């Protein structure tokens, strides 16, 4: 049987776990490159104008990768009314029209259609590995994803406290390779521990005044740094400790396991007074997480949304009300290919200054 070549959208550091899983299933993985200006230019050129930023970036990634010879693309669907559910079909149509003969395999959330999910997994499993083997492969790569998340969260904590600007980013980039190169669960455990140990060696000032900023919004622009102009790094250097509402481990768990994690129930409950209905995408999550951040004593919130994303536009109008009711600063960025970085940086700096002075004022009153 011929070995099939497969690729997938680029999404933060998770691509390394995706690669691992697909190689375990017998594919030759054609790694997508980290999205660049060229990627976006390609996507913009062939995508409908009013499709959202993730659609354009992902299409650009495909157009950069397919010329290397690809048989299959595996990607995800969307939840509820989110347009992402249509993207695989739209991408496929455009690529076929351009002459690329590639098969799309779309993974929908199992809670939506368990039988369909199983059928799709079996389609992916073209070499007919046993269920036990597949379970072990998923478990191992899931462990890798969790390690990637743990290390990233450590970096987010340390960055605003680093004594020398850029030291956390440089070390983080280095230790990331430990986890990426690890294969077995034992190796992943060891790599994670070593990575955390190395990060802990970076000189930091734990007493420094740091503001805690929550980040909510659409999953792709939250997770892929090239789509949000490396915003976490930027505000980390400005003195903000970032907590992101979305990590792949959390989102996948909430849409995969029937048991509903405690965290998910909490987010939905928090959103209910403002937005009881699921409006698709991550709109409800944005509201719920904003409320939770307020309760946890965060200093401010940043919402990231692709331009024309309806769930986030709805969330934005509600966040304005929440901001007023709770006297809680919220800054929103709508992102598309026209977004200018300089304007974003000015607003971010002003926002972090605002949070710092507000925090100092609060501290001086107590």
């Amino acid at each position, binding site marked *: 049987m011929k070995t099939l070549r497969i690729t997938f959208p680029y999404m933060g550091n998770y691509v390394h776990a995706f690669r691992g899983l697909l190689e375990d299933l017998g594919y030759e993985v054609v790694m997508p*490159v980290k999205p*660049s*200006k*060229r*990627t976006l230019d390609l996507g913009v050129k062939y995508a409908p104008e009013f499709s959202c930023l993730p659609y354009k970036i992902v299409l650009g990634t495909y157009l950069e990768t397919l010329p290397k010879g690809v048989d299959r693309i595996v990607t995800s669907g969307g939840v509820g009314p989110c347009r992402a559910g249509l993207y695989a079909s739209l991408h496929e149509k455009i690529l076929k029209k351009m002459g690329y003969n590639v098969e799309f395999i779309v993974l929908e959330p199992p809670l939506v259609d368990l039988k369909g999910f199983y059928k799709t997994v079996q389609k992916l499993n073209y070499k007919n590995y046993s269920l036990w083997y597949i379970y072990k492969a998923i478990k191992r790569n899931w462990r890798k994803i969790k390690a990637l998340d743990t290390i990233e969260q450590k970096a987010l904590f340390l960055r605003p406290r680093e004594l020398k600007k*850029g030291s956390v*980013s440089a070390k983080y980039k280095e230790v990331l390779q430990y986890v990426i190169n690890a294969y077995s669960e034992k190796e992943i455990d060891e790599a994670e521990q070593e990575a955390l140990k190395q990060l802990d060696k970076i000189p930091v000032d734990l007493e420094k005044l740091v503001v805690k900023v929550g980040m909510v919004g659409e999953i792709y622009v939250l997770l892929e740094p090239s789509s949000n*102009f*490396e915003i976490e790094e930027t505000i980390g250097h400005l003195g903000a400790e970032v907590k992101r509402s979305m990590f792949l481990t959390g989102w996948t768990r909430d849409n995969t396991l029937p048991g509903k994690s405690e965290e998910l129930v909490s987010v939905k409950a928090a959103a209910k007074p403002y937005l009881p209905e699921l409006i698709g995408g991550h709109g409800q999550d944005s509201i719920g997480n904003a409320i939770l951040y307020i309760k946890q004593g965060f200093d401010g919130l940043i919402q990231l949304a692709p331009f024309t994303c309806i769930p986030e536009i709805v969330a934005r109008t509600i966040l*304005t009300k929440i*901001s*007023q009711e709770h*006297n809680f*600063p919220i800054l929103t960025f709508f992102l598309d290919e*026209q977004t200018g970085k*300089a*304007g974003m940086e*000015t*607003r971010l*700096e*002003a*926002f972090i*200054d*605002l949070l710092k*002075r*507000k925090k100092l*004022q609060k501290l001086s009153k107590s």
Partner: protein
Amino acid sequence: MDLYLGIDVGSVSTNLVLIDEENNVHESLYLRTRGQPIRVIKEGMQILKEKYENKVTIKGVGTTGSGRYLAGVIVGADIVKNEITAHAIATTTFVPEVQTIIEIGGQDSKIIIIRDGVVTDFAMNTVCAAGTGSFLDQQASRLNIPIEQFGELALKSTVPVRIAGRCTVFAESDMIHKQQLGYKIEDIINGLCEALVRNYLNNVGKNKEILPPIVFQGGVAANRGIREAFARALGQDIIVPKHYNVMGAIGAAILAREATNGQKTNFKGFAIADYNYETRSFECTYCPNHCEIAEISEEGKVIGRWGGRCPRWEVI
């Protein structure tokens, strides 16, 4: 005498101020940038040099505005700060009870909400300049009226003509139409002022709770017609501080004093007025982002680079 230097490099004007420990403004320069920020910074420093060299000690320097990074490496800034923070610091110093700051410059406009002396919210215009000074400049030029006389003419009007304000292109079409119908020039100008105010309040000021005292600053605050239009629209007195057109630079100077806090300044001295600066740009081909890197050299030595998405080309 110990003084602090603040520099605000904007798209239309570049402002330099010298303040003392008690925030008295000893010098205030309002120069036109004309697309040449380096030349105008040197020009400003030359003026200050002739007047103040060997007579005062510069204890700190701060920069702000869209050209703040460039200015920062030229003069040796102790702090480089965004214009929102700079304006807020300056205004709360001179009008401590301020709750709303309206700032309109040549290309951008801002609203800053302050409660109990601290910024609690802000917004800036996004991609459109319809609510900024460039809108007025353009129309003044077309009407062949000096921008300095624009405001006084607006005050002569008793019946403002309705002018579309959402977009400058539509506004211009509307004005031409009204002119051709024979409306009086001062009524058209007053209508323009109201259009700008409407645009500002509907876009930058959207969702903001605007409470008095309201302070209006930036170059457009020179326009009496705009001041009155804001007062009518908001139903409040509008405070225009004495140094309304250089508040960003004053804020930068105050922040420089806070930043140095008695420590030695990084200021390079007035001699920079005589230095030779070269700029160039190149495209980084290391990865497909192809960042456009801008580079500035002082007397042959590279002192700054910008434009990269990663730290590869950063200086020091």
